[in-house]
């Protein structure tokens, strides 16, 4: 008996009698005898105090946002998570609930998802948001798949080189089994206008990111015009925090817009679980993947929430479904709903302003350092590119000694930039932190 199994020896004896077998092992006669009850070579079990000690030993070997100053982003961001968010996530009624297929006993989860969808629509200016995808990368890949399904007979996706390299990799992995061409990012220096010029009569979608991987903000309206002129969809990937200040995908005219939702109250957690935000225009709602919550009424005329437009999903449509997605990131969608409710209209703007002004202060400080060059790629939000006097690996090693996690090394994904790092500044980096970073960079130059 373990502390999770409440069946006693006496219970078991009585239950076996009811079942009509003598021994527990009799229940496993369908398993081939020569493969039955294989030994499992696993470490001996640990008591809770022992396990806590072992967990503590492992977690202390990792740097984290309290042990180090983090100036690293590149798709995962050290934003502020209010204490109230996790207190809601810790409610057993939420985190130990199943997918809300039985609406009468799932109104809590359903209302939370409906509010998440509504908050995301308000944030983005888009018409429809689904109940989530796994992360920003898979959301963007599903956007490409949806575009192929919406724009019939076109098998080409044009993607800008400024889209996060991991997202482009995910898109290529998920689409490798189907006959779709992904192009546009072969030249890492191609401008958005040059990429948009590749959109033609065979293109299903133009895929861009703003702020792009380098942190640069773009006016997407001309790109939407170009995509639509060729009969293609506009797919925009955004940063939800940037929308506290800057152009929304709705204003940009995007047909599908996706984001990594991790900045909205979801911690870094070494890369997951995160939140794939997926939105689109009303006219494409029947082609959207994943779950949707809608409003209806019960037999007593009470407002009620329910999963709806289910005929798109895998458990009903099977091989004709819009996607195979089933389990999504429901609890992370709840985190985003609580986060957006807490920060609200004013708070989101304040967070965005803190990011913007502190990032610009950091860029200005670093631009003055001998040997460093802040690349001017256009207006930026919270990330920017710095050319470094030595390889980024060596600089980051020196920063580690100062308790600083430095920027993302761009030499692997964008070798043409030479020794260059992508730095990220958020509301979590104080002026003193930024000054410490500048001093450490000066010392290592």
């Amino acid at each position, binding site marked *: 008996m*373990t502390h999770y*199994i409440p*069946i006693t020896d006496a219970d*078991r004896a009585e239950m076996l009698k009811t079942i009509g077998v003598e021994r527990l092992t009799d*229940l496993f006669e369908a398993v081939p005898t020569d493969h039955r009850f*294989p030994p*499992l070579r*696993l470490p001996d079990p640990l008591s809770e105090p022992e396990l806590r000690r*072992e967990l503590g030993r*492992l977690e202390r*070997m*990792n740097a*984290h946002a309290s042990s*180090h100053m983090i100036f690293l982003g590149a798709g995962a961001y050290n934003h502020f998570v209010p204490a*109230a968010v996790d207190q*809601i996530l810790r409610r057993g*009624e*939420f*985190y*130990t*609930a*199943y*997918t*809300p297929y039985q*609406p*009468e006993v799932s*109104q809590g*989860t359903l209302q939370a*998802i*409906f*509010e998440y969808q*509504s908050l995301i629509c308000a*944030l983005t200016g888009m018409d429809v948001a689904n109940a*989530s995808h796994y992360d920003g990368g898979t959301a963007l890949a599903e956007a490409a798949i949806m575009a192929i399904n919406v724009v019939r007979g076109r098998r080409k996706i044009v993607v800008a080189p400024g889209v996060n390299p*991991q*997202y482009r990799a995910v898109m290529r*992995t998920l689409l490798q089994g189907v006959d779709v061409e992904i192009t546009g990012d072969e030249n890492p220096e191609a401008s958005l206008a040059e990429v948009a010029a590749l959109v033609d009569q065979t293109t299903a979608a133009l895929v861009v990111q703003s702020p792009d991987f380098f942190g640069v*903000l773009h006016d997407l309206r001309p790109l939407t015009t170009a995509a639509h002129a060729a009969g293609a969809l506009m797919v925009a990937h955004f940063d939800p925090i940037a929308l506290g200040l800057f*152009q929304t995908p709705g204003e940009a005219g995007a047909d599908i817009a996706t984001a990594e939702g991790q900045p909205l109250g979801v911690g*870094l957690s070494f890369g997951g679980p995160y939140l794939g935000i997926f939105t689109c225009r009303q006219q494409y*709602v029947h082609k959207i993947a994943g779950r*949707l919550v809608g409003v209806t009424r*019960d037999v007593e005329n009470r407002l009620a929430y*329910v999963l709806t437009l289910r005929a798109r999903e895998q458990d*009903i449509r*099977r091989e*004709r479904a819009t996607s195979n997605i089933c389990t999504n990131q*429901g*609890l992370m969608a*709840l985190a985003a*709903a609580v986060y957006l*409710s*807490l*920060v*609200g*209209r004013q*708070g989101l703007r304040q967070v965005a302003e803190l990011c*913007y002004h502190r990032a610009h202060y950091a860029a200005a400080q670093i631009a003055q350092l001998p040997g460093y060059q802040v690349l001017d790629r256009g207006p930026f939000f919270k990330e920017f590119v710095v050319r470094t006097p030595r390889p980024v*690996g060596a600089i980051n090693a020196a920063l580690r000694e100062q308790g600083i996690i430095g920027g993302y*090394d761009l030499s692997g994904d964008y070798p043409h930039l030479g020794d260059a790092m992508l730095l990220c500044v958020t509301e979590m980096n104080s002026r003193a932190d930024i000054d410490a970073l500048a001093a450490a960079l000066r010392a290592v130059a």
Partner: protein
Amino acid sequence: MHNHEPPIFELSGQGKIGVNLPQIDVPQSDLPADLLRTDDLAGLPELTEPEVIRHYTRISQRNFAIDTTMVSLGSCTMKYNSKLHEEAARLPGFAAAHPLQGEELSQGALQLMYELQAYLGEISGFDAVSLQPAAGAQGELTGILVFRAYHLDRGDHERVEVLTPDSAHGTNPATAAMAGYRVVEVKSDARGNVDLEDLKRKLSPRTAALMLTNPNTLGLFEEHVVEVTRLVHEAGGLMYGDGANFNAILGIAKPGELGFDFMHYNLHKTFTTPHGGGGPGSGAVGCTAALAPFLPAPRVRRVPQTDQASPPTERGASLRPANAAPLPEGAYEFFVPEKSIGRMKTFHGNFGMLVRAWTYIRSIGAAGLRKVSETAVLNANYVQARLKHVYPAAVERTCMHETVLQGKLAMAPEVRTLDIAKRLIDYGFHPPTVYFPLIVPEALMIEPTETESKRTLDAFCDALLAIAEEAARDPEMLKRAPTTTPVRRLDEVRAARQPILRYDPAVFARLREEGLQF
């Protein structure tokens, strides 16, 4: 339970805020005027922290969940979620670590991942494990893409079909289609197994794989599983194992030894990471040595002396930047398998779920895992034995961790499974899975799991037996159920016909005018 809680937007009041943020402590820079949003964020609500907490706490109380009641959903493995796991995943070295901070600063996280890869491989009999896929369906897609890459790597271009049993989860055919395959359905026989004759008819040089859940969705162990895997291999196909029902066979059988080539683990089922009201999950995957080079990147290994010194399943390029100093031998590092299909998602998987699964395995060990499956199977058979004389079993056999019964009551033919499920709610239980698998009319698929006591199982069975009596006496009462919930049966057709998918003050004002209460 509270009867009403308005949408959060209706609790908003101008000028309120629910967070305490730092002041701007740097000189302000100009904003690019042509790139600003123009609506002043008017659609977002404004609330204080106490209002937000009360709102979400109140709506949480309108859920059934494992912490409040038995959730017997078949194929979902709604077992108890340990509180220690929640503490573990929230330790700052796990919860606040950046995924790109570098292996030098992440040795603890990497060791945990490396050990979990080894544990999952050992439990399932596979040589290599990737922890990257985000959920079961993504694990399935990973497997089918790995199979595709394997066949193409051998110059085998003719395999365009994936076989799935008619009892399969919907994700199986949806996955095969997403990977570009034609789906061919295989029939089940009278004992609930794959129909061997139909399988033989459908296997061909076009067969890329058979996707099989074992125990299957009837809750039955495939009696001819070794024969099935042999036939598929003889046809040149590969065996995919859907691990949704793995909770039945921990320490009972290893899929790798039964002839499967690849499987996914639903860590959110078998290894009790919480379902979260629909996710996050984790769909880690395991496979044979022959398929290991194709697994998605990155995986974790120990730094070898040289690449050739790595075990064959751990060969490939390090993920470290070219100019970074080497890690010492024996340290943990990410690597890209030699012929990897690529990256299934960003970063390294749903790491927070990996911490919970690791903690679970370390806390109960090998004997505890076998006890889990033995008890899960015992509990399901006990429920089946107590109910099958009233609710006929889909197949009269010893079941594994779940039993599929039918809501076809001899004494109340007009009552349907849906009515029985809804009435069960009034007895305080979450309904089982209903109308699945599709091949069983009026299916009631019950998976009690090992974490329910006999007392609870008896109360659950007593409730279902009482409902059968009610059905005979007063079938209309069942049609009216549930009556004790915050809302009762819904007009689902209206929800789909006139979809309202987000809050709009005008729409909600109209609903109020129409007399809707909320």
